[in-house]
């Protein structure tokens, strides 16, 4: 198991390095269309071939990784902060605030998030730069993705509220912010970390889903979602393994996060 953890960390580091130094590593611009060589097979010039417009797939994978890997954790952080505020406060206070907060959470979970995302995307200003649009996309994902985590955090906070630990802390004179800082937050930290790590692949996949629908990151900026659009049918990649590389990368990164999650200190 330890080997698997190390391998996962190593893989994430390699991927992060590639994404971080994409400017140095990429053989070409992610946007430039080599129109004389669309759909080219792998070569020294284009290690993963070119896409249907002649853009270097390796470069696009590197830049796409940068975008997906940088922004998914940010979206995850935003959603966990929201979830901690709603779930944590509701669970800690109990009573009607908890009931209201959980009813709101249930309502949020019932919303068809995909349609919400489509609606938000369609309301964006048309001349938003691709980078702005991708930031807004992930921001929206973060704002919409807190509800499931809030339920888990609320349960954990409720357990703390009725636990002997809280009674003892109050008996020793801890109240207000001190009680929150010394007792409550440390108690919630493992669950917050676990929820944060769970959310990252969820947001990567959500962006990929939007990308598959053509509503993800605006052209010509790449993301894993837009790269996965090449695989929209079986015949589109039959006999062309190199087109599967972005998918393989996504699977490996998501798996690595899951492996890291299985560590006891972050497990629920």
């Amino acid at each position, binding site marked *: 198991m330890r080997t698997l953890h190390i391998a996962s960390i190593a893989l994430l580091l390699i991927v992060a390095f590639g994404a971080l130094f994409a400017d140095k590593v990429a053989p070409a611009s992610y946007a430039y269309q080599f129109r004389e060589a669309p759909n080219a097979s792998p070569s020294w010039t284009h290690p993963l071939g070119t896409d249907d*417009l002649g853009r270097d797939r390796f470069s696009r994978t590197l830049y796409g990784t940068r975008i997906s890997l940088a922004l998914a954790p940010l979206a995850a952080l935003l959603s966990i902060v929201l979830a901690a505020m709603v779930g944590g406060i509701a669970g800690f206070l109990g009573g009607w605030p908890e009931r209201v907060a959980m009813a709101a959470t249930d309502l949020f979970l019932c919303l068809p998030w995909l349609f919400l995302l489509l609606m938000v995307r369609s309301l964006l200003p048309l*001349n938003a730069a691709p980078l702005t649009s991708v930031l807004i996309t992930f921001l929206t994902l973060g704002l919409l993705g807190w509800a499931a985590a809030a339920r888990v955090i609320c349960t954990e906070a409720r357990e703390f509220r009725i636990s002997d630990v809280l009674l003892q802390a109050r008996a020793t004179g801890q109240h207000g912010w001190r009680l929150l800082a010394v007792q409550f937050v440390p108690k919630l930290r493992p669950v917050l970390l676990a929820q944060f790590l769970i959310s990252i692949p969820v947001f990567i996949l959500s962006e990929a889903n939007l990308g598959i629908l*053509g509503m993800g990151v*605006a052209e*010509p900026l790449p993301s894993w979602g837009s790269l996965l*659009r090449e695989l929209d*049918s079986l015949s589109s990649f039959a006999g062309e393994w190199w087109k599967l590389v972005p998918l393989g990368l996504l699977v490996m990164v998501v798996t690595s996060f899951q492996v890291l999650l299985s560590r006891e200190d972050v497990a629920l």
Partner: protein
Amino acid sequence: MNKLAAVVALLVAMSSRGWTQSGELRLCLRAEPKTLNPMQVLDEPSETIRYLTGGVLLRVNRVTQQVEPELATSWRVSKDGRSISFKLRDHVFFSDGTPFTSADVDYTVKQMMDPAMHSPTGDAFRSGSGEVVTHIISPTEVTITFPAPVAGVDRQFDQVAIMSATSPKKELAVLGPFYLADRKSGAYVLLNRNPNYWKKDAMGRQLPYLSSVRLDVQPNRDIETLKLRRGEIDLINSIDAEFYDKLRGTSPQLVHDAGPSLDTEQMWFNQVAKAPIPDYKKAWFRSTAFRRAVSQAINRADLCRIAFLGRATPAVGPISPANKFWFDSKLVTPRYDPDSALRLLQSDGFHQQDGALVDRTGNPVEFSIITNAGNKYRERMATMIQQDLAKIGVKVNVVTLDFPSLIERMSQTFQYEAVLLGLTNVDWDPNGQMNVWLSTSENHQWNPKESAPETQWEAELDRLVREQAQSMDLKKRKRCFDRVQEIVYEQLPFIYLVNKNALSAYSTSLTGVSPSILRPQTYWNVEMISKQ
């Protein structure tokens, strides 16, 4: 001896063309048909059912482009173009045995023009205010009079499937080669040979050759292609360039490229005066020089070669070069020339500043192109245009939207700068495009519903399309429409990009298939198709 030789020759001929009356033609519908009422057809699956089952008075031959008699043996259009008289075929019966008479034509016209029915088929005949009147002269003679002249009126009857006035089966009693035998929602539609079909082949044999047509509902194009390769279906009526290419790689004998179709892909700028976009952008979009420069800076040959994998032709204007009669042969494909585009822009007050194009007041030239999400050909074209225009310093943002949002922006809120979309043409006759060119029309997309033409050239377009619509003189109509094409070529309200090729695929077990660029491309002569 001679008689014996003739009989042997006939038998050989019959066997060599695989003549049989027992084959089943199988193909896919990409969605469930929304209606079986021929007057209510709007979607393609319903149109397929209508085409295969409906009997029409006149039929446009999809290859020769000529109007041919079907249930009418002859017809005559009055000089003023306001009425058409038909002499009907005698001893013809609907699929349920009900006789066909001029009363059925009267009933069909009444159904079609009934305002309560909202029949899309009837729209083509609504030439003016007033009623369409049918005058029954005898059981085999009928005259239909319209309130105003209808251009190309005889061709419009290609879409009018005659309904029975007396059959208890209503629209299920048909005069076409097949009738609806079975249907399972979401799964299939089965059509059987109409035993009362009136048509016979040159050798006097009862048509259609096929005994049935099975239409499987299958929205997935991958599966549809796989089914064709496996022999589970016999044809794909219209296939896109990517699947065509893949199929050509594995089964080249199955695919057919009929050349440029009548459909166009084009982009246009928002020229609506009240549109919520900055005034300086409105000024660019309303400048002919700006539109012309953008057109010159787009590499159409690359769009065809890369976005459509070589299965498209650079477009010239609203009429495809495949439409030999109506295409204005004086027009040539716009030349890709970014240098000339830049010079044109400079003459219009634009200049380059640090590689970016700016207008005379210093605003950088940047606009967005919206297109419908999920259409990979349009997304590719938009991305290629983005790179082409970057060469002259224009920044383009490509935005893909779901279709309802796109339509709302285009036709209601006008919150857009440029659109990339396509137009499907179902007929050779450009009269069907009237609703695009008339300045008062909702489909006058660059500036819909103008109370009065806002430019001189739009006023001229209005005059020309009205003039051609009211004329029965084909030469005069052609002259008018040539001028329409020339104005559009000069003013570029639409920047035409490509004409997609008409691509289809069909099994080698079928004989009699004669692919056309007009819908339905492969089975337009279904009664003459046989299966070995």
